[in-house]
């Protein structure tokens, strides 16, 4: 047996000695791309990453990644209008991943389990004044505290939360969730002053010895419209209506309520009216459904609750118990033009929901702060014209959503930190976008979205119970696992499996893979078959 027969007497060795990597003209490289959800998130959340952790069932780590950017997921999971889901690549496959629902699940779980936000960094010695405890102010406070700065949060109202408390009805945002997440921020050691409107920022900064300030005063001045009205008509604005819902006595609106406007606030007002006992809640809007700024989910839920929409209508006259509407028609530019056709509507009260302005009188003493069209003018770094004074949220010209405000709060905190540290603000380079075309969607299982349950419409009008029901764990897990992980390796082993040259080395769970360039012939199958587009081919340098 020791002597080999002549047919194999040359002692055949392993072909591993044959380095076929030299055949390569292109070499693959692993990379991370920007998932569209992350890209679209105004709060700058690393959505893909926390979904990745959630899909492993590691909810606490997922939550911890989430609160790196946004300390209020239970709130966001309820009130965000989900630009992430609009951008989600899965939407082109079947339906977008229910990111928002998973976020709420994580947020609620964190409250339930009492997870605490990360400890602040050591004291930086800097003092920052944050004016306004809405989402922007709270977010800025949180991020500034994390960076070790001393923060005083000054709020004009008697409670924290800003528009989250005074603008969003309870059936959308139960106050328990709001209170829990806000308290978690203040527990980081924040000097909170309630019921203290700041009227002179410069003076307040001087007096408090603040090195910087973040203005997050919101926009609470309701627009009015000129409508010929008899004195007896019951007319109020939506901001006031919603704000009054936090008070002891709910306002009396009567049985027939007309809301004038087409934004989310109009929907909130109409739905609130239904809950306050209105049998008829009618939204009058001068343009069409398509032109309506309110988000679909709001319109949809309102309709479910019996809110009636009247498109292409303006209110021309108000009297006691009676409104005159004029039908409108869109011109070729899409603007509504009066038609002269009139309609009479019975109404006990009219709620105006025509938009809000910010009250920026506090910056009057700072000449270098520019206010344009009722909004603070800020640079890319959110700094106003006055060094060290930053503006966020509805007080700026940004989109007026909670999410945007939270994102701006973070951005302002980071900019303030850089400014306070005397270093230029570093912006992380954004990865190339992981577009749908870069994916190989074949590999994803067919998995339609889990429908988020809502409270039955019949039970909504009588109460302010939360409409949207949270996902249970298995649904949240399922939803997380629907994530395509666009542009980010999720260790599906496909590259490892499909390489005809066994030239992919599997490094073990969490450590992904690397190429064995001794044998990789550069065929590109790994790239072609990578589900999530996390490989790129590059010319071999010869």
């Amino acid at each position, binding site marked *: *047996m020791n*002597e*080999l*027969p*002549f*047919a*194999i*007497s*040359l002692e*055949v060795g392993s072909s591993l000695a044959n380095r076929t990597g030299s055949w390569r003209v292109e070499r693959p490289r692993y990379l991370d791309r920007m998932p569209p959800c992350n890209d679209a998130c105004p709060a700058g959340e690393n959505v893909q990453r926390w979904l990745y952790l959630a899909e492993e069932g590691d909810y606490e780590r997922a939550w911890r990644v989430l609160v790196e950017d946004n300390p209020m997921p239970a709130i966001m999971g309820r009130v965000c209008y989900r630009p992430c889901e609009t951008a989600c690549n899965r939407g082109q496959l079947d339906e977008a991943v229910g990111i928002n629902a998973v976020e709420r699940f994580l947020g609620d779980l964190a409250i339930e389990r009492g997870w605490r936000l990360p400890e602040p960094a050591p004291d930086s010695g800097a003092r920052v004044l944050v004016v306004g405890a809405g989402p922007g102010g709270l977010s800025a406070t949180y991020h500034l505290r994390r960076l070790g700065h001393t923060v005083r949060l000054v709020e004009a109202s008697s409670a924290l939360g800003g528009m989250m408390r005074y603008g969003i009805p309870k059936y959308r945002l139960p106050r328990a969730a709001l209170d829990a997440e806000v308290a978690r921020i203040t527990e980081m050691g924040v000097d909170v002053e309630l019921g203290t409107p700041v009227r002179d920022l410069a003076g307040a900064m001087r007096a408090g010895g603040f090195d910087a300030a973040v203005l997050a005063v919101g926009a609470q001045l309701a627009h009015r419209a000129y409508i010929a009205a008899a004195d007896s008509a019951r007319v109020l604005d939506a901001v006031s209506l919603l704000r009054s819902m936090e008070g002891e006595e709910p306002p009396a609106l009567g049985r027939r309520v007309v809301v004038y406007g087409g934004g989310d606030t109009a929907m909130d007002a109409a739905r609130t009216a239904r809950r306050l006992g209105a049998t008829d809640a009618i939204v009058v809007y001068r343009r069409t459904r398509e032109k309506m700024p309110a988000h679909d989910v709001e319109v949809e839920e309102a309709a479910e609750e019996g809110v009636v929409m009247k498109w292409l209508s303006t209110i021309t006259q108000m009297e006691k118990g009676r409104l005159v509407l004029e039908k409108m028609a869109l011109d070729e530019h899409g603007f509504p033009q009066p038609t002269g056709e009139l309609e009479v509507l019975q109404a006990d009260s009219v709620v105006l929901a025509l938009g809000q302005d910010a009250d920026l009188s506090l910056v009057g003493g700072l000449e270098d702060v520019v206010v344009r069209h009722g909004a603070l003018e800020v640079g890319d770094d959110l700094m106003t014209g006055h060094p060290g004074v930053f503006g966020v949220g509805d007080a700026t010209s940004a989109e007026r959503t909670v999410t945007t405000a939270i994102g701006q709060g973070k951005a302002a905190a980071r900019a303030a930190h850089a400014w306070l540290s005397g270093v230029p603000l570093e912006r992380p380079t954004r990865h190339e976008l992981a577009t749908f075309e870069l994916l190989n969607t074949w590999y994803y299982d067919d998995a339609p979205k889990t429908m988020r349950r809502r409270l039955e419409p019949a039970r909504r009008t009588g109460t302010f119970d939360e409409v949207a029901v949270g996902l249970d764990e298995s649904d949240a897990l399922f939803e997380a696992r629907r994530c395509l992980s666009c542009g980010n390796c999720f260790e599906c082993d496909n590259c490892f499996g499909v390489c005809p040259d066994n030239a992919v080395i599997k490094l073990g769970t969490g450590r992904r893979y690397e190429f064995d360039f001794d044998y990789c012939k550069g065929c590109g199958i790994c790239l072609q078959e990578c589900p999530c587009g996390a490989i790129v081919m590059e010319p071999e340098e010869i």
Partner: protein
Amino acid sequence: MLRQIEGSQAVARVVAACRPEVVCAYPITPQTHIVEAIGAMVKSGELPGCRFINVESEFSALSVAIGASATGARAYTATASQGLLFMMEALYNAAGLGLPIVMTLANRAVGAPINIWNDHSDAMAARDAGWIQLFARSNQEAADLHAQAFRLAEEVSLPVMVCMDGFILTHAFERVDVATREQIEAFLPPFEPRQVLDPAAPVSIGAMVGPEAFEEVRYLAHARHLDALGVIESVAEEFAEVVGRKSGGLVAPYRTQDAELVVIALGSVLGTIHEVVDEARDRGLRVGALGVTTFRPFPLEAVRDALAGDARLVVLEKAFSSGFGGVLSTDIAMALGGATARLSTVVGGLGGRAITETSLRRVVDDALEGRLGRLEFLDLDRAAVERELAHMAGDRRSGPIAENVLRAIGAGTAGIAGRRA
């Protein structure tokens, strides 16, 4: 055990006694009786531990044997004529892989024209395939050679082909002392392969070899054949010790001492030649015979020793190379240092044509009297050949040669083979 037995049955019994593990069979006359008998033994349980595989062709028969042998099993098959040629590719392969398969070749002519009777064309066609080729003179030797073939094949890790004349031996009933299982167990150790397919020690067998080493590999095959020459003799000696009977070996000289003429041949015709030699000696003629038992590897030295002197040589061949002449003759000449005037080739016995003592006597007499040409065809019907040559010369559409010749000699009814003699 001494018995009056058909040659095929004797071979089958010895092969069975060698305890093959895989026997593959595809029917072709005249080897069928052998594998039929082994098949029956396997089926009846008489030959335990053996698998009998009925394949769909000779090519597959040898291929099954290749797979079995590479897996460490003792493998056996048998064939003849066209069957051997159909397995030609596998013949080279088995030899190239060094697999110790034993095969019986019941020698038969190769068509066309199709012919089921004996000659050595098939064995000669496989001459260069790398197999050891042994030729049996009698059924006794055929039986004994099979036992030796397994021993030899496994010792040198080469396949061995035992050639026995179809019908003349395979179908002849005669007295054979069939080696017993006990004798064979004492003579043939268990198969210990040089290479084996085994998950415990995986090897690649049959890898591609390029010009860098192919010649070396081939040379090594040659060297192994040369080694086999010695092993063949020692195996024959050991067989004689264990079984008490001499058979096999490289060459079989018969009354060559002082001979003026030596007739050289392969296979069963040597028996008839011996009769003629004895009769010639009785007539005072100094005639001897030389049997070549081992044809591949060719025993150059043994042949040279056996033919020392200056006797005239007649190589009687049951095959020839068209357009050239004798095949064995060339090898004999090579043993003697090249072409020699003292050597004549007589081609005979083709396609079952009987080689009679009368004809052989004439060859002997002609040879002794210098009347024999360099290449003769025994008992050739010259007239029939001339007629057909003329026919072909005169008619472009002369038709099938075989039918024309048959018509010319008035054959067509079954007659006794050798009716021309």
